[in-house]
């Protein structure tokens, strides 16, 4: 696959922004700032999808993660505990060792899986122009059962949330 200079430069910029913002997510002392940096990180993931010519996934990434999920996290934080301009006092971290261990194990496992998998590579010329219909086909034909099971799971979560919210009114 021929990679043009533009793509390479774009990849570099996106990766740099993503790594810096990801680092800021964990180092920010103000939890709302951390969420804002998380948004930047997730937006950069959409940039990766675009570089990989997966336009549909990029739009989904923006619509769902940046536009909805993270905004709801901010929403929840603001409603519950985030005062403007104040760092939220965090409890002394006592599980540093475990955190490092878990991170290392996850990183090792993920790297091992990524490096050993034989990824199917398609040349740019043979690639299909649109990914939308292919994704729809996969979701609604090949993997229709897992797809439906996931939606039932989400429905259960939804009902659970409503039940929890209703309890106070009684």
């Amino acid at each position, binding site marked *: 696959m021929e990679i043009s200079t533009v793509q390479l430069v774009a990849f570099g910029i996106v990766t740099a922004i993503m790594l810096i913002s990801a680092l800021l997510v964990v180092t920010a002392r103000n939890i*709302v700032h951390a969420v804002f940096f998380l948004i930047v990180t997730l937006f950069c993931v959409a940039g990766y999808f675009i570089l990989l010519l997966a336009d549909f996934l990029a739009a989904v990434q923006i619509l769902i993660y940046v*536009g*909805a999920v993270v*905004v709801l996290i901010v929403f929840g934080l603001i409603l519950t505990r985030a005062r403007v301009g104040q760092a939220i006092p965090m409890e002394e971290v006592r599980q540093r060792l475990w955190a490092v261990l878990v991170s290392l194990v996850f990183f090792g496992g993920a790297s091992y899986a990524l490096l050993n998998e034989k990824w199917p590579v398609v040349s740019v010329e043979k690639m299909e122009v*649109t990914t939308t219909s292919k994704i729809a086909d996969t979701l609604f034909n090949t993997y229709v059962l897992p797809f439906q099971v996931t939606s039932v799971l989400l429905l259960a979560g939804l009902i659970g949330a409503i039940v929890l919210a209703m309890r106070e009114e009684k």
Partner: protein
Amino acid sequence: MSLLQTILVIIIELAAALGFIMVTALILIYMLRKVMGHMQARLGPIRVGPHGVLQTVADALKLFGKEDIIPAAADKWTFRIAPAIVFTASLATFSFIPFAPNIVAVNVDISLFFLLAISSLAVLGIVMAGWGSNNKYALLGGLRGVAQMISYEIPLVLSTLGVVMMTGSLNLIDIVEKQKTMYNIVPQFLGFAIFIVAALAKINRTPFDLPEAESELVAGYNTEYSGMRWAFFFLAEFVNIFIISALGTIVFLGGWNGFLISLPPWAWFMIKSYVLIFFVMWVWSTFPRFRADQLMDVGWKILLPLALLNIALTGLVILLREGRIF
């Protein structure tokens, strides 16, 4: 094309889009004042220039010269960046709109989906402005804005889905080309009705202007803003009115396809868009405001089920036509 050329082209395109947006916003603000004025039995701006046409230009110059005040207790960076995010989201959304078969800044296969996705970024700027201002009115306005925009985004997206199913494409140009013989508003009237209501809510306009309800919240999420930063919010609002009207024109009103008299495609597109813009302003100056609970009821209990019904009906009709059932 070399890297330098690519970047140069992008900069020129952005500058052109920015210029168009500025001019559009100025025209819309003048139009709103005149339309609203005459509907309320007054004249609207009349002093600056013939019939006050230069009033918004004068206002813009005034805003340029105003002091940019940042409250001492605000979260500085969040406060500063919020207007930029709101405006950038509008600018980026704008680039997907085709004005005529060959006048479109960015043409991708799924431009409708991209347009809707990028427009949802504005929510982020609003929540940042509301939280960063450290002001209870701003915070309430921001929270209301987010709740409303997320709730109404769902019926808005679903209402366009019927058209997408009929067209078989998410590309805005394809959608317009498919409407040569019949505009989508005829078979998709339910979709169009849902679209218009959800669109009014999505751009925070009357009767859904709770995020900036001036009688309760001073000005909502932009209470603490002044000068150019405030102007960015203001501009973004008017750009959003244009974008949503243009989207309605493309998806339901046949885009640049004309009838009876022959005009250049972009002229048809602009005429139809401005008819929708006039409709928005008409509603704006005549309707009272919803209550917050009514707002949520309309979104979740009326519009969403109707949008789902519309999708189911459209699917059924398509299957019947293709003879895949019965």
